[in-house]
């Protein structure tokens, strides 16, 4: 006797839409129990997590700042995943974009270079990320190398390259040997939108990216081809779509967006190049992409929601002395429920009494 997942014959669209809400509801219930066990009032704890950050202008800005790189990267990743190309290396493309753009900032430092510097940096970041993203894509279409492995391994290469640059050639000469470049000049810095706040131009760029992603997928032939190649490769072949070309395209766009997110982060909130510029954005964005169901608008919402849990978690640490680990547990539980709800909408459990021979042989 064994328990198997069986695909449901029909699926309800209404249920599919409210499934994330069910997941969030279940998460809230579970977290309330956890808070109560920690001796905290669940209602005020959930309030600190979810309501306080939303009624305060400062926290709203911070949510947007935190969500910006996540959303930009996730939009690119969703194109890859829709085309059935598994780019796990957005973190590396993010870092290379940061490095490529920073090159110009370091070279023009202290000169009277004009306001062209920042746009050029953003462009360099995008190009750098795209080229870096193309490496695993080319290895896949040329040699059949698994892009999951190659793109992931290139993350570490990017990490070490960045490390080398800020410890060696690009190190701030006045920085006592500490591994960082000097602070970027004002012309090489992403401007903030509201004086005194941290919300920067990158937030606007992220929204543009979301809109462009939505148009690309819904209104263009390339978007259609990407979706067909992923969903029905045979149909795509019959349709005469060049799937290799589409994989290259998806990786290039994905790399470019991750790279631009990287240089925006460095030239914006950080202000200089240093190791540790990404607290794992490239990996968290994978979660954002799936939480948003590979849909641009969904990704925007998912990115903002994940950012909210970070900011709320921090405020819970301050206001209620709830440990940081609880925030991580919280994010884990959320993902667990989202995936569980999704699975149970598409599949149902079934008890099989005589296990099929095929599956026995497979073990």
């Amino acid at each position, binding site marked *: 006797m064994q328990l198997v997942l069986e695909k449901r014959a029909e699926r309800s669209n209404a249920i599919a839409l409210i499934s994330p809400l069910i997941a969030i509801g279940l998460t809230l219930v579970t977290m309330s129990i956890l808070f109560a066990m920690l001796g905290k*009032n669940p*209602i*005020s704890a*959930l*309030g*600190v997590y979810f*309501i*306080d950050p939303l009624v305060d202008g*400062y926290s709203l800005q*911070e949510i947007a*700042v*935190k969500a910006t790189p996540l959303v930009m990267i996730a939009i690119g990743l969703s194109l890859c995943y829709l085309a059935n190309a598994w780019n796990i290396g957005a973190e590396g493309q993010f870092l290379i974009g940061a490095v490529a753009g920073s090159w110009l900032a370091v070279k023009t430092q202290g000169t009277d270079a004009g306001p062209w510097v920042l746009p050029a940096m953003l462009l360099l970041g995008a190009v750098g990320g795209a080229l870096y993203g193309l490496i695993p894509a080319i290895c896949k279409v040329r040699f059949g190398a698994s892009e999951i492995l190659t793109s992931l391994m290139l993350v570490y290469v990017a990490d070490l390259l960045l*490390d080398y640059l800020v*410890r*060696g050639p690009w*190190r701030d000469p006045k920085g*006592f*040997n*500490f*591994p960082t470049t000097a*602070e970027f000049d004002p012309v090489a810095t992403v401007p903030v939108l509201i004086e*005194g706040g*941290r919300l920067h131009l990158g937030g606007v760029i992220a929204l543009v990216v979301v809109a462009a992603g939505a148009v690309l997928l819904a209104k263009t032939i390339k978007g259609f081809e990407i979706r067909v190649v992923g969903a029905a490769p045979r149909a795509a072949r019959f349709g005469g779509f060049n799937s290799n070309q589409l994989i290259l395209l998806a990786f290039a766009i994905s790399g470019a967006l991750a790279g631009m997110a990287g240089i925006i*982060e460095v030239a914006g*909130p*950080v*202000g*200089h190049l*240093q190791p*540790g*510029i*990404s*607290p794992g954005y490239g990996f968290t964005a994978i979660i954002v992409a799936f939480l948003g169901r590979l849909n641009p608008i969904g990704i925007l919402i998912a990115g903002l929601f994940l950012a909210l849990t970070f*900011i709320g978690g*921090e*405020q819970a*640490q*301050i*206001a209620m*002395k709830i*440990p*940081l680990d609880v925030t991580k547990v919280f994010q884990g539980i959320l993902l667990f429920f989202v995936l569980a709800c999704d699975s149970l909408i598409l599949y149902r459990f079934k008890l099989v009494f005589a296990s099929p021979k095929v599956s026995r042989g497979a073990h």
Partner: protein
Amino acid sequence: MKKILIAATAAVLVTGAGLLSASAADKLKIGFIYLGPVGDLGWTYQHDLGRLEMVKEFGDKVETTFLENVSEGPDSERSIEQLARAGNKLIFTTSFGYMEPTLKVAKKYPNVHFEHATGYKRDKNLATYSGRFYEGRYIQGIIAAKMSKSGVLGYIASFPIPEVISGINATMLGAQTINPNIKVKIIWANTWFDPGKEADAAKALIDQGADIIMQHTDSPAAMQVAAERGKLAFGQDSEMIKFGPKAQLTSTMNNWGPYYIQRVKAELDGTWKSEDFWGGLKSKLVVMAPYTNMPDDVKKLAMDTEAAIIEGRLQPFKCPIVGQDGKEVECKGGTHLDDGQVLGMNFYVKGIDEKIPGK
């Protein structure tokens, strides 16, 4: 239904916040930003011990909050600002990478006092503090040279920043007073905290003939390797004797409590000023763990050296100091190198065969 729930939640929150602020009004709120988890048994753990010691001293007069695992990247500015917005009047940021973010937030909140550990940028409301860890390293060098049979020391270094370089130099200067031909092998782990890497480095050093292991990384992994292999080692940041009861000679421990007490007292008295504090053995910011696993004469020598440093009779960086290139280093402090030269140290002393990475 949902609306009612939200309204009820909001109501609870508002009353809750009101109660909180009423009871917290006359307490001094103090915030801490930690790099690692409080349970890292090294750098952050020692800062948290310091915080707890300070809380014990002032009891009800203070209320502390800490944020742990704050990465030195784009998140740290927000974390620091969150503490400032939550009403903390004195904020300690306890890692070098928080320098620029602390500076930015300090400019935005002129009425809040900030203290940044191990940095060099100050402002009207931003002080800096750090430890003269090299004083402990000098004593360790003497002990190591006395205890080593092979005449080769193994040194696990983190990053080639002045604090680490000056530690290596102080070790060698101490060791050379006992054995002028002492050698040191250095492995750069390029991390502050990675037990796996640190253990590998310790194994490699022992395989290369080192019989004393010293480290400028934060985990007790190297101590454990030394203990397994029957070698001797020095702890780092905190007391690590339980990881190598037969291996630990001593440990240069960071003792932040007295400093935190002193600064909080100044804040309570209204006498807080921005300054640069660099405390060593004398101010008890650096403390040596008990000298163990060594004969009595070595122990006595170590204690005498410690006393001499505390009384100011002995300067680890006493002139003349000869660099790797054979040239004498300029002596800006009269009889010894001045603080600026130590804080920006970027050369090896004679007797070290290796090269500083990236130089």
